[in-house]
């Protein structure tokens, strides 16, 4: 192996990547390699020692940097989850997560995209708070998307006039996500007074920064939430169930008439066919009109977009 001509560039990069992406043990590079041999032997295959540092020590610097950088980045992006779990449990979760979902994107911005799914896949890592941890991760990922996703020119009041309620499929802004949650995660994140400090790329070397944030647990509460952006600031907006269902239908590609009919049908099932039921329907139609006007004002609707199923949870 030490023969210069036998290790090509790709092989060398694979050797190094395998070592630096391996989890640390007590904040140090693991002493034993995957095959049971000393990691120092593995390092000595391709890293030159010098007077100050062994091959192992030189490789260990990169091993540490990899984990510090990625842990820091996710700690920044998921500050609420870190506060909720505490940094020890958070780190354990993230190390397991990155083992299964290493980065396949050039940008650290995408690093946490599979974290909510992973929490569901490995509930023991966040037990007994898995559902709550999942929902915090879901909302924090929605924030990341809301922060820098594309904004399409919204429908103007004039263009609404030419919309066919039976045919036009409205689309919503890519930055908008709907969430059905069982905990008041919005209140939880707001109490953290979290500025939106999404992790950014830098070419400085990371020194691990562990953040301790204390926060009261999220309250159990069934809520419906829209995560969106207005004037380039990320906001949460609580919705009622009807609003959530209506918006969800529109985002799933239903026409206005289809979405409204579905909602009215659902409400009919809950009401007896009497005067109270009719009055309720009229109230519902009036509420739909008001909601629609608000959403238009917020610029949530665009025209002729494709379906964006990843914007609705569940």
């Amino acid at each position: 192996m030490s023969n210069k001509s036998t290790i090509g560039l790709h092989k060398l990069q694979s050797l190094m990547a395998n070592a630096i992406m391996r989890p640390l043990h007590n904040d140090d590079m693991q002493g034993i390699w995957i095959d049971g041999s000393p990691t120092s032997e593995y390092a000595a295959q391709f890293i030159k020692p010098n007077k100050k540092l062994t091959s192992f020590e030189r490789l260990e610097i990169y091993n540490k940097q990899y984990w510090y950088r990625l842990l820091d980045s996710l700690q920044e992006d998921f500050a609420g989850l870190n506060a909720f779990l505490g940094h020890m449990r958070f780190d354990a979760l993230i190390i397991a997560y990155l083992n299964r979902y290493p980065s396949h994107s050039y940008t650290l911005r995408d690093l946490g995209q599979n974290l909510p799914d992973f929490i569901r896949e490995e509930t023991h890592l966040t037990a007994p708070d898995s559902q709550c941890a999942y929902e915090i991760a879901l909302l924090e990922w929605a924030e990341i998307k809301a922060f820098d996703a594309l904004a399409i020119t919204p429908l103007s009041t004039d263009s609404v006039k030419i919309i066919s309620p039976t045919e036009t499929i409205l689309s919503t802004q890519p930055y908008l996500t709907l969430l059905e949650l069982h905990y008041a995660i919005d209140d939880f994140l707001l109490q953290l007074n979290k500025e939106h400090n999404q992790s950014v790329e830098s070419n400085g070397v990371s020194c691990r920064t562990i953040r301790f944030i204390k926060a009261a647990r999220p309250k159990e509460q069934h809520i419906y939430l829209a995560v969106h952006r207005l004037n380039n600031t990320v906001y949460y907006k609580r919705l009622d169930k009807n609003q959530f269902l209506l918006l969800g239908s529109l985002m799933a590609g239903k026409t206005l008439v289809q979405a409204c009919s579905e909602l009215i049908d659902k409400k009919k099932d809950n009401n007896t066919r009497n005067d109270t039921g009719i009055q309720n329907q009229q109230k519902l139609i009036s509420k739909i009109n008001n909601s629609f006007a608000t959403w238009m004002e917020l610029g949530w609707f665009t025209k002729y977009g494709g379906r964006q199923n990843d914007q609705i949870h569940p």
Partner: protein
Amino acid sequence: MPANKFNGFTNLGIGIGLRTAHYQKILDDKPPIDWLEIISENYMVDGGKPLEILDIVLEHYPIVQHGVSLYLGSTDPLNKEYLKKLKALTQRTKAPFLSDHLCWGSVDGTFSHDLLPMPYTFEAVIHAAERIKAVQDFLEIPVCIENVSSYAEFLASEMSEWQFLSEVSERADCGILLDVNNIFVSASNHDFNPYDYLHNIPLNRVAQIHIAGHSQLKKYLLDTHDAPVRDEVWQLYGHTIELIGKTNTLLEWDANIPSFETVHLEALKANRFIEAVENQLSKSA
């Protein structure tokens, strides 16, 4: 020499990196800064605040793009989506040139998000140079390569780092973003003389200089960009300016970022070396 084809014939002066910590100060006061360097990837997004701020900044300052994810030495195929976004950003910023590191960072589609050192082999020279040429052709603006700080050397290496940098830049016909702090850090970590490095690279290709602070650890130096520039690095910078003349210079400060004023004042210390060289030149004239 300072304005050359590798930096789009610019003589920008002394700049600092645009960092979120200073957004408000820059937007509110529009302080007199010669130019700003952005980390390209932070603005290769589809919308939102980063682009809003960038557009405002562009109205007031020249911008140069500096990337961290091109991975010119990686064996993975060049990422076309990345390149398209990068090109779109250059069209937005009208950057006269851009830079990224002579390093690798991904293998088989998995990203380390680190600037990993190259083995200094002939295979790596050919590989990196071909990629730089391809990137340069696609982007249609000059691409400069930056020497990285490193903590490890490969047994496979067949030449020194400065020979490697020279070979790659000559073969790719590209410019060099010379990071004098990185030279100093690597020189200390690998026991070579930083002035040997300086005297053995094609200085006519230097398009820009980076300066930064680093940290002294027990056994090695770490390129942390979290402190003022060390005196030894300023001396190295001064010598570089003596050799090549006034050149686009930028201070990087990426962690423990102090006030805008502190960062800017630190960057402006470069002026004393530039003025010394210019005084010498005027006397000899």
